[in-house]
């Protein structure tokens, strides 16, 4: 039915199968939307946040998706500025993932705030000294950049491309994409950094506070760096998952390996910097404020020193070690482990910088506060995931996301073979519909 919209040279599952898939994920999405409406209509009392946990799972999710969405700007940097042409195979997908991550982040912010209808005050009445203002501005602008980067891909849909204006627009945008990408990198550097700054400037909270350069605490640079390092791992991870689900090779190995290699070195350098930062903080910053490292990791049921070990060693040095070695990158299992660990690592880091910051007592007579999200918070946090899966599904079906897909999966070579297709549960057998038919 919708075959006219499906790119040439690739195979997709039947529309019914696709709709079934969409409706399953859509149900989850609706659950999230329901929870979101509850939060909007009834207020944030729907959450388990409280006056100690003013920032909770949403802000973590926000920081995490932005960190892992950092793959878009870093891949863009490598592709457009440094001219790594191998990445052509994955850049579209990196942009798409980035777009999903950033739109999710903005959505989360829209229900995280107590007065969503006044959300625009952050722009209108901006306080330029606030890291959050910097986040808001750079985040929105960069989302604009991602949209600009995403538009040509949409325009390349077979039907849209037939309109001469759109065809030319897409072409022209490609032509000057390097300018956009460079702006994107500039903006990303600041908003990733300022997200780190959000925690790092809290001089009232020794657990989060870091010294730095000028107005920027060390976390500013660590956040940018970790997003650049781990973002590509997330792009690889999602690509791998997509390949597994669709049971086809979508991106050339050379692209994956190059990205993995760069990511590996980035992680290694990041984690060394992070270690130095932690060391300095534990031995100089915190003691100068009368606290020891173990004050932050004891007397509570969850936050033990294990979390630091997990973040730095298991999810830092281990993936770095795998990714910087050729053997590690080439080994599919090792690559899987490495990218998962790297993504988990950056998520732990963001968790620590949001939720543990809130949990640690500051006044000597205060106490650790523990928190568990309400179902409304969980649903609204899953909501962007469902939205992302749907958008990936749609884009994969109707847009030429993977330029090398037809080359990697030539239809002509398998004309007689029944092929399983696309996202939905893989076991659903499909009648093959040749593209363009």
């Amino acid at each position, binding site marked *: 039915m919708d075959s006219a919209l499906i790119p040439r040279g690739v195979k997709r599952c039947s529309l019914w199968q696709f709709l079934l898939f969409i409706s399953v994920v859509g149900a989850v999405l609706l659950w999230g939307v329901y929870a979101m409406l509850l939060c909007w209509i009834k207020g944030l009392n729907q959450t388990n946040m409280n006056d100690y946990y003013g920032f909770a799972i949403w802000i973590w999710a926000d920081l995490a998706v932005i960190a892992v969405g950092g793959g878009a700007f870093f891949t863009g940097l490598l592709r457009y500025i440094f001219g790594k042409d191998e990445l052509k195979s994955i850049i579209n997908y990196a942009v798409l993932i980035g777009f999903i991550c950033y739109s999710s982040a903005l959505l989360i912010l829209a229900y995280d705030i107590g*007065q969503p*209808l*006044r959300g*625009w*005050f952050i722009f209108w009445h901006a306080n330029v000294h606030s890291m959050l203002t910097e986040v808001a501005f750079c985040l929105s602008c960069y989302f604009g950049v991602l949209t600009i980067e995403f538009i040509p891909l949409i325009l390349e849909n077979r039907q849209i491309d037939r309109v001469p204006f759109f065809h030319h627009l897409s072409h022209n945008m490609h032509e000057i994409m390097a300018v956009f990408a460079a702006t994107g990198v500039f903006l990303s550097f600041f908003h990733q950094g300022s997200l780190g700054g959000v925690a790092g400037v809290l001089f009232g909270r020794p657990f989060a506070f870091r010294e730095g350069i000028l107005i920027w605490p060390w976390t500013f640079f660590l956040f940018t760096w970790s997003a650049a390092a781990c973002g590509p791992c997330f792009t690889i991870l999602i690509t791998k998952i997509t390949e597994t689900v669709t049971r086809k090779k979508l991106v050339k190995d050379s692209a994956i390996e190059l990205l993995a290699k760069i990511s590996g070195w980035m992680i290694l350098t990041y984690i060394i910097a992070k270690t130095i930062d932690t060391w300095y903080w534990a031995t100089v910053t915190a003691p100068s404020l009368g606290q020891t490292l173990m004050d932050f990791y004891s007397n509570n049921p969850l936050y033990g020193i294990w979390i630091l070990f997990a973040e730095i060693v298991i999810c830092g040095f281990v993936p770095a070690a795998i990714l910087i070695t050729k053997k590690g990158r080439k080994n599919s299992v090792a690559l899987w482990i490495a990218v998962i660990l790297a993504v988990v690592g950056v998520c732990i880091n963001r968790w620590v910088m949001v939720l543990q910051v809130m949990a640690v007592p500051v006044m000597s007579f205060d106490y650790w506060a523990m928190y568990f999200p309400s179902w409304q918070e969980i649903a609204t946090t899953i909501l962007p995931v469902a939205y992302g899966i749907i958008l990936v599904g749609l884009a994969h079906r109707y847009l030429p996301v993977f330029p090398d897909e037809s080359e990697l999966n030539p239809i002509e070579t398998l004309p007689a073979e029944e092929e399983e297709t696309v996202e939905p549960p893989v076991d659903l057998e499909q009648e093959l519909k040749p593209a363009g038919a």
Partner: protein
Amino acid sequence: MKIDRRSFLSFLIGGAAGTTLSPLTWKLMDDSAIWTQMWPWTPVPEDGEASYVNSACSLCSGGCGITVRKIDDRAVKIEGMKGHPLNNGGLCILGLSGLQLLYGPTRVWTPLKRVGKRGRGRWEKISWKGAVSEVAETLGDLRKKGQSHTAGIISGSDRGTVPRLFDRFLTVYGSPNLMRTSSIIDSYELTLHLMQGVQALPGFDFENADFILSFGSGIVDGWGSPVRMFRANSTWCNTGGKVVQIEPRLSNTAAKSDKWIPINPGTETALALGIAHVIIKESLYDAEFINYYSEGFEDWKRFVLDEYGPDSVATITGIDSATIIALASSFARASKPLAICGRGQGTTPGSLNECTAVHALNALVGNINKKGGIFAVAEPDYINWPEVEMDARAAVGMQKDRLDGAGSKKYPFSRHLLNRLPQAINSGEKYPLKALFVAGANPLYTMSDSKAVKKAFDKVPFVVSFSSYMDETAQNADLILPNHAYLERYEDIPTPAGMPKPVIGLSRPVVKPLFNTKHTGDVIILLAKAMGGNIADAFAWNSYDECLKETLGYKWRVMVEKGFWSHPDFFVQTHEESFDTVSGKFEFAPKETGSLKQFKPVKIEGDKTNYPLLLIPYDSIRLANGVVGDPPFVMKSVDDTVLKGTDVFIELNPKTAGEHGLREGQLAMLSTPVGKARVKVHLFDGIMPGLVALPRGLGHTAFDDYLAGKGINFNELIGPVEDSVSGLDAAWGIRVKLAKA
């Protein structure tokens, strides 16, 4: 077709984009933000002209002066009255929340008559006329049958015009049964009566004292006139006055004191006598006072020296003898020492032995009726109404014994023994109570052994409540004749107990009555008039306000102007005129007190085998436990280690908790011989091992949702223990057993 669809889509997209970019979007965005800034469901208080009204707070017997800020005809804030002799600008947490009672959901709006079973909460509105005639009819019937003595009144106080109007009414009607809510004041009155031969209230000159020896009195926990005590405590901070607090639990007072001496609960008398022992032995007492103004000292001295050496007292009290000796010495050597008693807020009278022993310490150092000492303050003399003329029926009724046994052969000196009333009704040994008025009191909540009290109430066929609020007693009444709230009425606020000089406050209407309520004073007058005859004749006033104005005479003008009246030429009595005993001197060993007999600890309920631990109550200024309960603001101030959700916490020493396998926050079952309760455990190092402490003031079943149903009423777990001399409630705790729930 395809073209059409495309143009349609373009139109849609273009339209959407156009609208988004048009000023409309920005306008809507702005409007919606403005809308959130003035949501119609968020109240906007109306502005108006500000004014201030001086009045007096009567939420407890503290008698603080208040200044109420008004905007037009709304009262918006209660503040302490500047320059008031008691509180000078400060105010307690309850007084500050008074507007939540005035405007709160617990007010009774109109006279109510019970429908259906008692306590079910079903009422019908009746008119004031109907209500008064119904009461008059019931009382008239009793009187006709010669049963006027079976009518009784439970009153929060027996001082001031309204309680005195009740008293007058009951006298001319023919019943001796006006019963006052009991407190440590009862014990003090009795002590002053027996040792000094006077009918007076105790007055303590805290402001000038420099060494306070407190036997468990919650100086900063609501004892006495609370704000005055807070101020006195701060005065000591400035002047270097010392406070020694003796009690088994680290209360706020103990924490604020200069020295906290934990003591085995219930052994305070022994300590007082032990201190006396040391003072006498080391000849540290005021020889002049002892020699010239006291009687019976030698006998008492022998007894104290024989029985209460520091070592034996150490064994009883758990305080080592060196501490006792040092304490006695510093007490006696202080220039203005003062010993006081009355545990916590002093809501329980305690044993008379204890009060006399503590008072004897004051006598030993000679600080009776002296600056920085304890005064016997005569009853205020401003109420001088003509004697009532009793008819024959009234005279017969007044001849009858009081139902509570006060003034009987057994307890000849006590004036009120409300604690004995439930037992008297339930046993039915004397005569039944057929009509009961409750005013300024909430006995169903405040009296110990709630079950027995409820049972007794159930036996009284006609209960009338005068409460402004739907409290526990009002809930279980047959008729509610709601008084104006305290901010809506005129009333005299007599000198609070503990004040060494008279200060009469004037409560006056800050706002016009909000509901169809009536001043209780007016109701008494109307009732008297409805009953006619001598009764009506005894109440010649047209209204309560007229009565009050007339009664106060020249003071009225001063009170209206300043908000209070204080004695302009109040003087300190000399020792020669102080004592009105047979000997004309201070009696160290009035025979009636049994001081010469060996000190016998109050026998509290429960046996050690079944109930291995001791349960004591504790008072907090943040938990009102009197006539009213905590308003929402005060509830908000209650710590989460006292109340969490609807669970109240007991305080337990970590050692005791360990022995019972209990952890912080764990649920436990508390059982005493009187009742059971589910509680949560809070570990507190400041409580003596082996003790369990439970706060007073929670566990209300009445009032609003902000208060009702939270925690446990301590009175459900304890019963009264009669003091052998006074008949007053001497219980300081009860044995208890604790198990994991």
